[in-house]
């Protein structure tokens, strides 16, 4: 913080302190606030508050709105099956999208503090045990497609991050993220969202620890080993450190919303349409026999089908909805979802350029077993 405003009373001071804390939490250096006048700050703060209030107002009144639209404007009669389906759809789609927008915006801002450079420094500069936990947590706030996680994984290795820790990151990055969290929360409640996140992180940690213990460094491709050994490169890699002003960080959040929400909304809409539509039109327990809790083999089969498939969290949501509403067990479906997101054939192909087959096999094996166990766990507790 390098601006000390003349006006150092109450709220303004508090804001400065708050920002200061945020900055130092992210071990930020001084942020260029010099260009931002106090006035523009107040304008931003004011419009931010207004937007938040508007968001809240819309969110709170969605149910009323969806009922009004369904039964008064569309003139569907209350109590009919079709009416209920339409009401559900009109309520759920904006609800999930609103949640998504809000969370993605804030995660975008948080993300602006974790440049790859800083992330690598955090991971390289800690003890291995701490590293696993940090890597898993950082996986949550870093990009969610496994295709961009692999180059990053390589960057971590080059920076001297232990192999196991990088694997914790590699597992957590695509699987545990804000989009999965919001979708699960919006559609199935906080319990499912929480359980998914916690077990996802757990699998990431365990995978990392196991691979670390097995000391599999020699199963990295030779050129990667050379790159890792060549310490002279480490410094050269760094792009100029991003010292963003808070305006730029807000822009970062807005960009994240544009990027992610625009990409994800069709899946969300389809997912909810499937959930709304199928609900009563397909026999409730259509899948219960083959994917219900009684079928002990359902979890491994679902996971084995899911592993080679490639999609992000949003893409599987329609499938998850469809399976669930046809009577499949929760654990089976969530394990399927995890398997689809966590590993995929394209990812394995990219990884093959960096890892030797044996290490890939261990990686996929450990993650698969982890997900299967989580599937059984979900089936037991939900």
């Amino acid at each position, binding site marked *: 913080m390098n601006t000390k405003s003349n006006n150092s009373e109450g709220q303004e001071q508090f804001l400065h302190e708050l920002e200061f804390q945020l900055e130092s939490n992210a071990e930020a250096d001084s942020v260029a606030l010099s260009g931002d006048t106090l006035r523009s700050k107040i304008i931003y703060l004011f419009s931010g508050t207004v937007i938040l209030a508007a968001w809240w107002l819309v969110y709170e009144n969605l149910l009323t709105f969806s009922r009004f639209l369904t039964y008064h404007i569309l003139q569907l009669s209350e109590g009919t099956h079709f009416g209920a389906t339409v009401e559900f759809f009109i309520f759920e789609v904006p609800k999930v999208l609103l949640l998504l927008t809000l969370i993605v915006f804030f995660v975008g801002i948080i993300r602006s503090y974790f440049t790859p450079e800083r992330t690598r420094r955090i991971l390289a500069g800690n003890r291995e045990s701490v590293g696993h936990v940090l890597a898993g947590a950082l996986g949550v706030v870093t990009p969610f497609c496994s295709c*961009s996680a692999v*180059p990053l994984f390589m960057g*971590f290795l080059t920076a001297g991050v232990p192999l196991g820790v990088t694997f914790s990151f590699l597992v957590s990055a695509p699987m545990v993220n804000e989009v999965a969290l919001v979708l699960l929360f919006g559609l199935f409640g906080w319990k499912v969202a929480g359980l998914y996140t916690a077990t996802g992180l757990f699998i990431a940690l365990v995978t990392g620890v196991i691979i670390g213990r097995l000391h599999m460094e020699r199963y990295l491709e030779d050129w990667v080993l050379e790159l890792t050994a060549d310490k002279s490169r480490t410094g050269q890699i760094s792009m100029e450190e991003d010292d963003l002003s808070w305006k730029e960080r807000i822009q970062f959040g807005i960009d994240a919303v544009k990027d992610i929400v625009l990409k994800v909304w069709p899946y969300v809409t389809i997912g909810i349409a499937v959930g709304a539509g199928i609900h009563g039109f397909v026999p409730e327990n259509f899948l219960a026999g083959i994917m219900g809790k009684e079928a002990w083999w359902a979890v491994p089969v679902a996971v084995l089908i899911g592993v080679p498939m490639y999609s992000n969290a949003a893409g599987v949501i329609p499938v998850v909805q469809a399976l669930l509403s046809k009577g499949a067990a929760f654990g089976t479906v969530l394990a399927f979802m995890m398997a689809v997101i966590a590993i995929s054939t394209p990812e394995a192909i990219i990884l093959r350029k960096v890892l030797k087959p044996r290490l890939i096999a261990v990686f996929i094996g450990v993650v698969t077993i982890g997900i299967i166990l989580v599937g059984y766990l979900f089936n037991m507790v939900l």
Partner: protein
Amino acid sequence: MKVEVLGVGCAKCHKLEELVKEIVQKNSIDAEVIKVEDIKVFGQYGVFMTPALVVDGQVKVAGKIPKEAEILKWLSA
């Protein structure tokens, strides 16, 4: 001038490639735009965030799609 776009299959990588090609064409810049998918090359450039833009062997940006004006500046330098 040799312009390389580094990226493996992510949506942003395609977008950057298209953007760069468009800029090159619109301003009739004498540049060859190549999409690099070999992750080994990423390592050589020290690029670990995709997409990345490399102009004549120099990494200009990594991990995001830069603004059109920025790209133009790098390409016309």
